[in-house]
C-alpha cells in the first residue's frame, strides 16, 4: 500500500559510480492518480455498499443460499397452505385411524404409471385392540393433480375446493399416515407451519429491537443507564425461562380467542429472549468503544447515536447475527416446549408444537412412529435458519 511506484527499482538510475550522484528527476508529468486508477472490477468492489458486498459474499456461501431458498419456499407455503394440503385440516376418516404412511409408487407390476399409492386392507385386532393395516396391491389410487377435493375456507374467507394434489377418487392419500382420529398428518403439518413459523419471526423482531436498543444504551453510555439496565437484565435473567413463560402464559386472559393467545405467546417469547442479545451487545460495545476508530468518531463530534449506529454496531454485526440465528429456532422450539407443558397453544389449534405434544407418549414412539414426523420440518427449518445465519455472519464482515 505504501510503496510508491515512482520509487520502483527498475529505474536505471543516474549512473553506477558511487561517488557521483547526479540529481535526476523524471520528466514525465506527475499524475498522482495513475496508480490508483481502478479497473472496472475494482471500482465496483470499492464503491459497493456494505450490504451489496455482504450479498456477494453470501452468494459464495452455497449452503446458506440453499438454506435461504428453502426458507423462502417454506414461508411461501404458509400463504397457500390450503392448496398444498391434500385434506382439510379437520377432515377425518373413521375407517383409517392410525393408518401408516402410504408411499408414493411409480411402478405397478413392473409397469410405469402415473404416481399412485396402494390402498389398505384393514383388520381390527380385538385381542390387542389394534388396527392392523396391510398394503393391498390390488387397490391402486392414482394421485390426482390440480384437482377438486375437500372444501375449505381460503384464509378463513373464501370457500374453495382446489388442491394441488388430492387422493384418487374413492381412495386415500396419507403420505405421512394418520392420527388417532384418522386425520392426515401431512395436511396437519402443512397447516401447522402457519402458526409455528410465524411465532419465531414475530418473537425475534421484538427481541432484536429490545436487545439492540437497551444493550446499545447500556454499553455506550455506561454509568446510571448501564447500571439500571444491567440490573433489569440481571433480574429477568436470574429466573429460569420456564417459570417466566409459565407465569406469563397462565396470566393471559382466558377470554382471549386462540389467535390472540397465539400473539400473546409470541410476544412473551420475544420479551424474555432479548436479554441475551442485550448483554452481548453491551460487552462488545464496552470493548469496542475503546478502539481508536470510536474515539476518532467521538473527537470528530459524532453524536452517540451515530457512533453506536454507524460505527460500533456494524463492527459487531456478525456477532448479533450469529445470536439472532440461534434465536429464531429457539423460539420455534420454545413454542413446542410451551405446548408440551400445555401452556402454549392447545388443540384444536394446530401447530407443530401441538402435533409434537400429541406424539409425546410411549404409544407414538413404540406403535405409531409416524406421529413424530412433525419433528422433520422442525429440524429442517431450524437447520436452515442456522445455516443461513452462518452464511450471514460470515458475510456481515465483508472487508475481511
Amino acid at each position, binding site marked *: 500500500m505504501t510503496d510508491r511506484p515512482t520509487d520502483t527499482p527498475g529505474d536505471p538510475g543516474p549512473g553506477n559510480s558511487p561517488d557521483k550522484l547526479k540529481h535526476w528527476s523524471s520528466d514525465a508529468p506527475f499524475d498522482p492518480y495513475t496508480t490508483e486508477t481502478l479497473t472496472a472490477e475494482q471500482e465496483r468492489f470499492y464503491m459497493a455498499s456494505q450490504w451489496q458486498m455482504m450479498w456477494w459474499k453470501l452468494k459464495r456461501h452455497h449452503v446458506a443460499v440453499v438454506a435461504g431458498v428453502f426458507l423462502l419456499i417454506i414461508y411461501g407455503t404458509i400463504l397457500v397452505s390450503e392448496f398444498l394440503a391434500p385434506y382439510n385440516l*379437520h377432515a*377425518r376418516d*373413521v375407517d383409517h*385411524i392410525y393408518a401408516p404412511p402410504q408411499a408414493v409408487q411409480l411402478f405397478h407390476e413392473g409397469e410405469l404409471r402415473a404416481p399412485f399409492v396402494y390402498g389398505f386392507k384393514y383388520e*381390527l385386532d*380385538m*385381542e*390387542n*385392540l*389394534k388396527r392392523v393395516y396391510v398394503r393391498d396391491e390390488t387397490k391402486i389410487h392414482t394421485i390426482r393433480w390440480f384437482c377438486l377435493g375437500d372444501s375449505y375456507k381460503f384464509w378463513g374467507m373464501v370457500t374453495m375446493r382446489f388442491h394441488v394434489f388430492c387422493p384418487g377418487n374413492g381412495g386415500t392419500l396419507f403420505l405421512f399416515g394418520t392420527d*388417532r*382420529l*384418522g386425520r392426515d398428518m401431512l395436511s396437519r403439518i402443512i397447516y401447522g407451519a402457519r402458526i409455528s413459523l410465524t411465532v419465531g419471526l414475530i418473537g425475534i423482531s421484538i427481541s432484536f429491537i429490545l436487545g439492540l436498543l437497551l444493550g446499545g444504551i447500556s454499553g455506550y453510555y455506561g454509568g446510571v443507564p448501564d447500571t439500571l439496565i444491567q440490573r433489569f437484565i440481571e433480574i429477568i435473567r436470574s429466573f429460569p425461562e420456564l417459570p417466566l413463560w409459565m407465569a406469563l402464559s*397462565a396470566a393471559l386472559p*382466558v377470554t382471549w380467542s386462540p389467535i390472540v393467545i397465539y400473539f400473546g405467546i409470541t410476544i412473551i417469547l420475544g420479551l424474555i429472549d432479548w436479554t441475551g442479545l442485550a448483554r452481548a451487545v453491551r460487552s462488545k460495545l464496552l470493548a469496542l468503544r475503546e478502539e481508536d476508530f470510536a474515539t476518532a468518531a467521538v473527537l470528530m463530534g459524532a453524536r452517540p447515536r451515530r457512533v453506536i449506529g454507524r460505527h460500533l454496531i456494524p463492527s459487531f454485526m456478525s456477532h448479533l447475527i450469529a445470536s439472532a440465528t440461534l434465536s429464531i429456532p429457539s423460539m420455534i422450539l420454545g413454542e413446542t416446549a410451551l405446548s408440551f407443558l*400445555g401452556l402454549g397453544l*392447545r*388443540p*384444536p389449534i394446530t401447530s407443530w408444537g401441538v402435533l409434537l405434544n*400429541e406424539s*409425546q*407418549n*410411549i*404409544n407414538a414412539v*413404540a*406403535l405409531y412412529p409416524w406421529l413424530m414426523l412433525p419433528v422433520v420440518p422442525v429440524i429442517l427449518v431450524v437447520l436452515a435458519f442456522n445455516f443461513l445465519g452462518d452464511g450471514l455472519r460470515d458475510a456481515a464482515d465483508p472487508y475481511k
Partner: protein
Amino acid sequence: MLNRSTAIVRSCRPGALGIATCIGLLSLLASPAAWGDNNASRYIDSPALITLVEAGELPAVDARLPEHPRVIPMDGTRRTAGRHGGQWRMLINRSKDVKLFSVYGYARLVNYSDTLELVPDILEDVIIDEGRIFTLKLRKGHRWSDGHPFTAEDFRYWWEDVANNDDLSPSGPPRVLLVDDNPPQVEFIDDWTVRFTWDQPNPLFLPALAGASPLFIYRPAHYLGQFHELYKNAGKKKKKSWRTRNWASEHNRMDNLYKSDNPDLPTLQPWVNTTRPPATRFVGLRNPYFHRVDPAGRQLPYIDEITMTVADGKLIPAKAGSGEVDLQARGLKFSDYTFLKEGEERHNFDVRLWRTATGAHLALYPNLNVNDPVYQALFRDVRFRRALSLAVNRHEINQVMYFGLALETNNLILPDSPLYNETTAHAWAGFDIDRANALLNEIGLTEFNDDDIRLMPNGEPLELIIETAGEDTEQTDVLQLVSDSWKQIGVKIYTKPSQREVFRNRIFSGETHMSIWSGYDNGVPTADMSPTEFTPTQQMGLHWPKWGQWYESKGSAGEPPQMQVARDLLNLHAQWLAAGSRDERELIWQQIITLHADNVLTIGLVAGVLQPILVHNSLRNIPDKGIYSWDPGAHFGIYMPDTFWFDD
C-alpha cells in the same frame, strides 16, 4: 351376585335398617369361634416377621391379633388361600399418591364388599336402631401398627379433642355428622363400644366411614396426644425447625391417617408406609397387627411389602409395559392397552380390562345457570337438551376412541348397579338426527344462516362454546366428533381449553355455556348410597352450580332452583335422607333416575370405558373382570389387596 346378598340382607330383620343388622350376623358366621382351640399357635405368621418374633422384638402372632380377627373367606374359585411373601411394585405419579397405602389398604370401620354391600371390617359389629342409633363394637385386642391397643379412647380423642376442638376444627365436627345441624350424642360405653345417637336417621354415616377417602372418626390418641396442647408436656418444647403458627398446625401435620405421609403415625391399614417424604420411592411394610386372617389362620396381608416409585405420568405406561410393576392401574389409560399388550410375553404379565364406574366417562354439562338469557332459556328447554343428546353419535365415538367396548348410554347408572334399568340408561341416547331437528324446529329455531347454522331468537347464530379442562387430547377429540354430528342439526360448537381452576370458576359464575367433564362420580350406587350428586345440592354440579351453592349455603348464596325438575330432585333428596327403609330409598332412587333420564340434565357421551389393569402372571386373587371405581370401591380396595399373593 348383588341379588343374592340383597336377599340375605332382606331376610335378616325387616323393618329396621336392614344392612347393618345382618352385617353382624355375617361376621359372626365367619368368626373363628368354630375352630377347635389348639394349644399350638392358632395363627400363622409371615416368615418375614418370624425372625423379629424370635429376636423378641415383636410379640408372637397370636398375641398380635385381636381376639376375633376378621376371617376372609376363600371359596377357592374367586379367591384362593395363598402364602406369605413377595413385593408388590407399583408406580405413582407424585409423592402425594403415597395415600394409596390407605386407599388400596381399605381397612375401614365398615367397608364395601366386592358386591358393594357394607360389612364391618375394623369393627366387629355395628348395631343400628331406627337408623339413628349406631353402636360400634370394636374387636377386643385389636392394636395399632405400633402395638398400642386400639380402643374407644381413640374415638373419644377424636370426638372430644379433635372434632370438637376449636383450634383443630374451627367449623366444628364434619358436616356428615350433622343431621339438621345437630351433632350426634357420642357415648363411650366401655373400652370396646362406642355409640353415636342422632334424633333423626343419618343414612350418610356408614357410607362416609367406608369411603375411599373416608371419614376417620378415630385417631391414635397415644401418638397424637403428644402434639395436643391438652396433653403435651409444656416444659419440653420441640425444636422449632420451621415456622409453626401454633400447635394445631403441627398436630394437623402429624395427623394424616389418609395421606399416609407420616411414617411415625400408627395405622390400621395392612401396609405401613416407612418412608418419610420427600422421596421418590416409598416402601410399605406389612402391619404386624393387621386384623384380618385367611381361613387357614394366616395373618393377612399375604404380600410383605409394597413399593411405590414416583414417575412422571407420561412415563408410567412405558415403565409398566417394560415390566417394572406387578400390579398397576393408576396412570394407565385405555389408549395404552395396545402398547401394554405388546409387552405381555416378554415381561410376563397380563393386561385385564375392568369397567370404570363413573356415570359416564365423559359428559356435556349444559350450564342451566348461564348468565346469557338466550342460552339460559334454550338450556332450560327440555326439548333443546333432548335434541342435543339425540344428535350425539355415541356409536361413532365408541368405535373411534374405544374400539366399541364402551357403553353408549347417557350419564346415569351402569349395569353393575342394582338400580340399573335399560330404558333409562338409553333414554334419549340413540342417534337420531331427524328427531333432533324436529325438536329444534318445534322450539322455533327454524332460521338458518349461510353456514347452515340455526339462528337463535335474538338473531345470533347458535354457537356453543364448550369449555374443557382436559390435560390430554381425549376431550378435544370427542368434542371434534360431537362437533361434526351437531353440525347436522345446525349447532356449531367451539372448544375452549382452560385450566382447571379457571374452568370451574367460570362455570360457577355463569360465564360458561357448556362444559365437558367426566360424568357422575358414582355410577354404581345402591339404594343406600347418597343421591347427592344427582340432585342440585352441590356447587360442584357443573350443570347447576348456583342452585347447588344455594343449597349448600342454606340460601345465603347462589340462587334457588328455578326449574320444576330441579325442585323435584331437591325434594326427593330430602325424602331420601329421611327415609326409614331400604325399599323406600330404592323407590326414591328410581324416581330420581327417571327424572334425570327423561329431562336429559346432562348429556352423557360414553360410559363404562375400560381401565387396563396390569397384573403380573404370578399374582393371584385379582379378578379378571372387576369394576374400577374410586368411591365406592377405592379402586383395588374392595377386592382386598391384602388377599393378593404371589405364586411361583
